[in-house]
């Protein structure tokens, strides 16, 4: 076997392997649409997305997922409010301030946090955090938006922190040196030079962290309480879309209206995460040249 043929075989093997993942994705999307679209014969797209009543098994059923969409958005936004500052600031500390020994430990711990199975976090939220929350604030229920957001924030922090950290490392040394040379303090350098030049990477990190939170299932299923109503305060229960799909799919009769409605909810979720990813991609492309300017 000549080197030439070997090279060719390897090349094609890699092509097939990468095509497989592409095919898998295409098949999943096709399946999602095939199973979800039939619901729109029973209910219009407008009534599905903006309808406020979710009673898929009543007769006649009502398939309005507005409360579920609102639930998803509320927990995602609130968890981002917690996770974004924590994630970014810990990234800044790790990449710019921490001494080498602390850096190693912190990085390892954050990676460990990323590897924590979501069901473990969900269980912790349900059994430890929720009862504590309920007793401390004397609430009717501990399974609410606030606890769910807190748990989701814990899941989003590693994503935000590690991607922002990469972005901070990518800031050219010359920028820092120039800043110090002009007499800037360390804080001024971080706040006015390093963070602004890593901003595209940090934005990507935030958006990917949010995408992680909106798609997360187990934690919201276990901790958000699951009420399919519009929340009135952050201590009300909500049912985000992934929780609704996970809880109901198991027993929805095969190819019934309810089954199709759950897949259609999946389509909505798919478009939301797709939008997040496109925005992240756009930002990282748009501002790419700015970061590594020609100095």
């Amino acid at each position, binding site marked *: 076997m000549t080197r030439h043929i070997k090279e060719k075989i390897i090349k094609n093997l890699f092509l097939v392997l990468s095509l*497989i993942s592409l095919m898998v994705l295409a098949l999943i999307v096709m399946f999602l649409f095939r199973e979800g679209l039939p619901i729109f014969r029973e209910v219009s797209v407008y009534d599905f997305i903006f309808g406020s009543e979710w*009673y898929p098994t009543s007769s006649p059923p009502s398939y309005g997922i507005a409360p579920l969409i609102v639930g998803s958005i509320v927990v995602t936004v609130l968890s981002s409010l917690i996770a974004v500052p924590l994630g970014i600031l810990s990234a800044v500390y790790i990449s710019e301030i921490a001494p080498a020994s602390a850096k190693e430990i912190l990085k390892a711990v954050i990676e460990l946090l990323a590897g924590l199975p979501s069901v473990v976090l969900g269980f912790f939220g349900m059994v430890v955090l*929720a009862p504590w929350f309920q007793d401390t604030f004397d609430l*009717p229920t501990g399974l609410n938006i606030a606890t769910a957001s807190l748990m989701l924030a814990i899941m989003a922090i590693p994503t935000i922190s590690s991607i922002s950290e990469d972005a901070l490392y990518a800031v050219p040394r010359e920028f820092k040196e120039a800043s110090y040379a002009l007499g800037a303090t360390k804080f001024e350098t971080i706040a006015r030079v390093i963070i602004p030049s890593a901003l595209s990477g940090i934005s990507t990190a935030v958006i990917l962290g949010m995408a992680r939170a909106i798609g997360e299932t187990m934690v919201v299923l*276990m901790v958000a*309480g699951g*009420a399919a109503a519009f929340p009135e305060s952050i201590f009300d*229960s909500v049912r985000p879309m992934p929780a609704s799909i996970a809880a109901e799919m*198991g027993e929805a009769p095969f*190819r019934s209206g309810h089954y199709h409605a759950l897949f259609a909810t999946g389509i909505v979720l798919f478009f939301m995460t797709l939008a997040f990813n496109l925005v992240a991609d756009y930002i990282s492309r748009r501002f790419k040249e700015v970061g590594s300017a020609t100095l």
Partner: protein
Amino acid sequence: MKKLVRLLIAAVTCASVIGASVALAEQSVIIKGSTTVLPIVQAATEAYMKAHPGVNISLSGGGSGDGIKALIDKTTDIADSSRSMKPEEIELAKSKGVEPMEHKIAIDAIVPVVNKDNPVKDLSNEQLNLIYQGKITNWKEVGGKDLQIVVISRDTSSGTYETWEQKILKGAKVTPKAQLQASNGAIVQVVSKNRYAIGYVGLGYVNKSLKGLKVNGIQASSATALSGEYPIARPLFMYTNGEPKGETANFLKFMKGAQGQKIVKEEGFVPLPHKK
């Protein structure tokens, strides 16, 4: 063209691997379905496999709908269900050449449960109905403390919910503020930690960490469920494709026999009445 051939070869390899694993599975029994029936079948399969070494039973939950779906797709030998198959499911099964056969294996009673600190002991059908519709919202209206009622329900497609809807809600809708939990175990977990809460679980799940309520003054028990006195009871089923054969038939016989029914009782469900 060459690439296409390579892809085809890859596809054929994948297909034959999957085919081989299906062929292997035929030597064992696969059971899938309702989480309500799960604890019974779990104990029964353990006992059965101990008594019949060499038989391999693979068991998974997922819900009644999942089990029936698997039966229709012929990926399971037995489907556990906490409800009768729906007409449209039977129709779909028949169109795929599957003849579902129903086997009653136990009776389940559904019990409203509250926290141990809740002084309420007894609720009527009507009171439960109004609580679940969101029309009674404070425990003091039904003889308890001045606390808000946190209604906890199951996902609307679970078999337990369906029975609850039939026997308690009678067609009315559950308040949208009701919390949703995806399993009997989760309801036990939540209610045992929340003094505001009310939920409902299968009789087998009532334990010392929470309090089962009487309904219309009647305590849920094997005796009252069998006699029909207790108002919220339902049969549990196993479905097979046509007359069961081989190990599947043996297992069903075991399940319905004295040993299987003893397990049903041990797991907190109600055994079938003895055949006369």
